[in-house]
Each structure stands twice: as C-alpha cells, then as structure tokens.
C-alpha cells in the first residue's frame, strides 16, 4: 500500500516540475514574441507616410484644427499657387498671410524698388531695404517667415506682352496694384486664362474689395440649361466698362493713405484667397459683391450687390474683343485706354518765375508782394514758406487778397498754382493788368533748390 502511494506522489511531483519548466519556457517565448511584436509595430509606424511633413502639423496646427481648413484644406493650400501683382500696401500684408498659411507657391510681380515713403504701410519692407527691389525684399521676408514654400520673383512691371506667360502657372491672382491701366490688364488676363481674381484698392481712409471672374468661365460661356453649374462671375470691365477720366484718378501720393486702411484690404485679399483655395470648390455659386471699407464711418464695413456678367462686356462676353492675340500682339493699349493727365500749361512764360529767381528778386518781408500757397490746410500746416499765406484752391473765389502789387502763387508741384493764378485773373483780381499775378514754377518741390532743408513729404 505505502509503496503504491509513494510512487503516485513521486510521479505527480515529476509531472508538476515538468509542467512548470514548460510553462517557464512558454512565458519566455511569449515575452520574446511580445517584444518583437512591439518593435515591429513601431517600425511599421515609422514607415507610415503622413500626408503633411512632420513640422507642418505643428506650424499649421492652429488653422488645421478649424473645420474651414482641416487636413484637406491644408493639402489644397500646399498644392496651390498664387500670384501677387504689386508688392506695396496691399501686396505686403497679403503675402505675409499667404506665406504664413502655407500656400505652396507664391509669385511676386513688381518693378519698383523700396522707397522711404513706402515704409509706413508696406510692412514687409524695412529701413535697411530702401533701394532694394520690392520683390526681393518681400521674398526675403517671406522666406524667413516660412522657409518651406516656393517663392517666384517677377522683377519687371506687368505689361500686355508679359501678362499671359506670367499668369499661366498660377491658380489665383491678387490685384494689389495702384493704377487703372494695370487693373484692366490684370482682369483681362485672368478672364483669358480662366483664373479667379481678388481685387482690392485703397485711398485715404477708404478701401474696396471684389472677388472677380469667379466662377472662372471662358468668355461668352453659358452653362447648359439642364446643368446646375453657375455662370461665370463678372470681370473688372463688367463693373467698370469705361475707365474714369484720368484727371479724376487720385494716387496715394496725391491723396494720402492710412497704413492700417490699406493693410486691412490686403489682409482681406489673403483671406478671400485662403477661403477660395482651402474650400476646394471653385465652381460654387457666388453672388458678386463689392465690399466697401470706410475707416471713419460708424459702421466701417458695407457690402453691396453687383450685377452678373455684362452682356456686351469687351472681355468676358460672347462679343469679347479682348483676345489672347490682341493682348500678346500689343494691340490693346491700356495706357491710352485709361488716358494720361495732360501737363498743365495754364500760364505763359511771363507769368512764371523759378524758385531761385523768386528768392533772389523778392525781399522778405516786402510790402509790395504776397505769396499765396494754394495747397490744402493740412499740407500748409506741415510746412510752408516764411511769409506765405494759405488760400486753398477751392476757396480762392471766396477769399479777399491783400492789396499788393504782385501776387505769387505756389503749390506742391506747380500745377494747381497755374490754375489758381488763372482763376484769380478770371475773377478780375489782376485789376486789368495793374497787378501782376503769376506762380512759382515747380512749386515747393523746386524750392529745395534754394533751401535743401525744406521738408519733402512726397
């Protein structure tokens, strides 16, 4: 009996020992397998290709998490190319935000160099860059902001001959220029190449913004009756079929411009571009509108409805006369179309004196003559000649002149002064020739020949 039980116990002990050995072996194998599995899955993750670069997730993270952008929007921005025509008060802020947002390729067109008078609003250009090409200055800034993008320089001004080849590689164009002739040229080129155009402008404390040629359809195209695709959007010529009279066009140099006003408009251009690209659907129905911004108004933003494409439009209708051949062949003369301001020749040689002549011949103070400055009050307060009195051009008729034998008129450049002198004569202030009325040739700008320290605000 005892022997049988002893045997059983022994056998069981051996079996347990064997099982434990086996168990230990299995545990080792399992641990090894688990370790291998983890490494493999880690390797697998390393090899996995993410759609954006590793650094892009961080760089664009704050906009990536917006439903308006998201991964797809960011990929569209990365693939997109945008051309900025004019790297000034509008182009600078627009470029900064497009580069910041990650628009894959940004092109810059401008033939100008940086001037000191640009710096209060053209935020990519800095004091040490005065004299540098605006295009190079902007690319320099954008590269340091976002080195991962492609920047293409076009360092010459846009002309009818260069417009088509310059625009062709881009998806979208921003009109950031400052004169009517170039605005018509840009719009025509966008229509010919079926590219949407974000157009903005600014002067003094006002700005305007339009999204044109969107959706971008060929000239004269009419959507099929059964399709629900919308018709093409109006172009610049649809809104302004004829250019304004050249004399009514006021530049920022003449009228002035507040930096943040033009900045707001440039930022809005970048915003329109980002919305259009990231949204992906270039075909969406769009109600054409014009956004008016007025910094001094109680409600600074106002949007007004524009009409659809103009049936007889010279650029985008079935009767278009603006064609690729006409453009490339140079038969469209935009400068002539918009006209030029004729030089003012209102006075004869005997009615005009040079700055040095006036300085040499007219003692100051002098009971025999008076110097009338016809610039507006703001400019007069900025700087004026000793002894001069201010009668703004529009107030000549209503203001009595001091009783002197000779009246000299001066203005900023010597144009308004001629018109003012002529107006005084028409009003009979010349007393039938007894009193001499004339102007200072070249205005205060010429006065710097006499006094190099006289301020130049131009």
């Amino acid at each position, binding site marked *: 009996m005892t022997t049988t039980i002893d045997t059983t116990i022994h056998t069981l002990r051996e079996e347990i020992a064997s099982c434990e050995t086996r168990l230990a072996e299995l545990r080792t194998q399992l641990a090894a397998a688990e370790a291998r599995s983890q490494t493999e899955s880690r390797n697998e993750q390393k090899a996995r290709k993410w759609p954006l670069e590793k650094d892009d997730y961080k760089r664009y993270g704050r906009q990536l998490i917006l439903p308006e952008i998201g991964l797809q929007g960011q990929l569209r921005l990365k693939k997109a190319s945008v051309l900025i025509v*004019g790297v*000034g*008060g*509008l*182009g600078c802020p627009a470029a900064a935000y497009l580069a910041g947002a990650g628009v894959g390729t940004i092109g810059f067109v401008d033939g100008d160099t940086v001037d000191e008078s640009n710096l209060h609003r053209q935020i990519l250009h800095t004091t040490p860059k005065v004299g540098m090409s605006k295009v190079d200055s902007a690319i320099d800034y954008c590269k340091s902001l976002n080195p991962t993008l492609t920047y293409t320089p076009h360092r010459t001004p846009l002309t009818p001959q260069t417009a088509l080849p310059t625009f062709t590689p881009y998806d979208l164009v921003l*009109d*950031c*220029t*400052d*004169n*009517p002739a170039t*605005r018509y040229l840009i719009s025509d080129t966008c229509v010919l190449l079926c590219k949407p155009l974000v157009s*903005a*402008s*600014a*002067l*003094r404390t*006002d*700005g*305007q913004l339009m999204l044109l040629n969107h959706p971008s359809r060929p000239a004269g195209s009419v959507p099929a009756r059964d399709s629900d695709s919308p018709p093409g959007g109006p172009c610049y010529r649809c*809104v*302004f*079929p*004829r*250019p*304004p*009279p050249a*004399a*009514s*066009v*006021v*530049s*920022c140099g003449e*009228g002035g*411009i507040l930096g943040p006003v*033009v900045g707001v408009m440039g930022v809005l251009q970048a915003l329109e571009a980002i919305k259009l690209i990231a949204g992906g659907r270039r075909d969406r129905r769009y109600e054409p509108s*014009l956004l*008016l911004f*007025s910094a001094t*108004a109680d409600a600074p933003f*106002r*949007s*007004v*409805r*524009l*009409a659809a494409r*103009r049936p007889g439009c010279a650029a985008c209708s079935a009767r278009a006369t603006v064609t690729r051949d006409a453009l490339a062949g140079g038969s469209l003369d935009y400068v002539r179309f918009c006209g030029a301001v004729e030089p003012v020749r209102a006075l004869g040689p005997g009615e005009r004196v040079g700055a040095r002549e006036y300085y040499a011949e007219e003692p100051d103070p002098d009971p025999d003559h008076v110097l009338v400055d016809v610039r507006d009050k703001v400019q007069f307060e900025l700087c004026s000649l000793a002894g001069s009195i201010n009668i703004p051009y*529009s107030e000549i008729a209503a203001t009595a002149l001091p009783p002197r034998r000779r009246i000299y008129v001066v203005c900023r450049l010597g144009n308004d002064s001629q018109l003012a002198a002529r107006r005084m004569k028409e009003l009979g202030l010349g007393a039938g020739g007894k009193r001499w009325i004339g102007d200072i040739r070249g205005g205060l700008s010429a006065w710097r020949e006499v006094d190099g320290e006289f301020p130049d605000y131009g």
Partner: protein
Amino acid sequence: MAEKTKTNKEDFIPLTVEFSGGLEMLFSNQKKHDVSIPARDESGNSSNIAFLVRYLCDNLMKDPKKEFFIQDNTVRPGILVLINDADWQLEGEDEYEVKKGDNILFVSTLHGG
C-alpha cells in the same frame, strides 16, 4: 383743402444720398445727405436716377469741378451707383424711379494700393 396739402407734401420725395471713395469731397466733405427731391422732373415724369443726378449736381454740389461727377448727362465713368445697396444695373440704371426712403450711394472707384 386737405386734399391739396396732401398733394403738396407728395410733391417731394425724401431720400438718403451717400458719397464714398472721395466723391464726398465734391459735396461739402459730407458723406451722408438727407435730401428731398421733386417727385416730378422738368417734363413732368416721375423722378428717376437720371433726374436725381442732375438735381444733385445743380443743388447739392458746391464744388465747381462738375466733370468729376457728371459727364454726358450721366455719372462719369468710374462711379458706381447703388440703389438700396444693389448695383443700379440690377434696377434699370438711370431709369429707376426713386421711391420714398431710398438709399442711393455713389461710389468712386479707388485705384491706390
């Protein structure tokens, strides 16, 4: 008599006229003007935008540079006319007959950048 007073009152249409983009400088540097214009034009037709433009030029505009607002009897090129915030092309251009309380906005295009 009551009838007559009523008719007199209806001889004029009160409107809001606004100028933007620098045009306000031609109109005493004031962007918004409340005006009342005759309900009928020189020929006795209902007053339309064409008449309003002539009326403003003759009565509201103090600046002598008329050609900066009007050319060939209509607003000069480069001025958009907005009738209650819509391009006048959508409303019949200068033939649109003005109504009491209309807002007519004249915008000069800007070119600076």
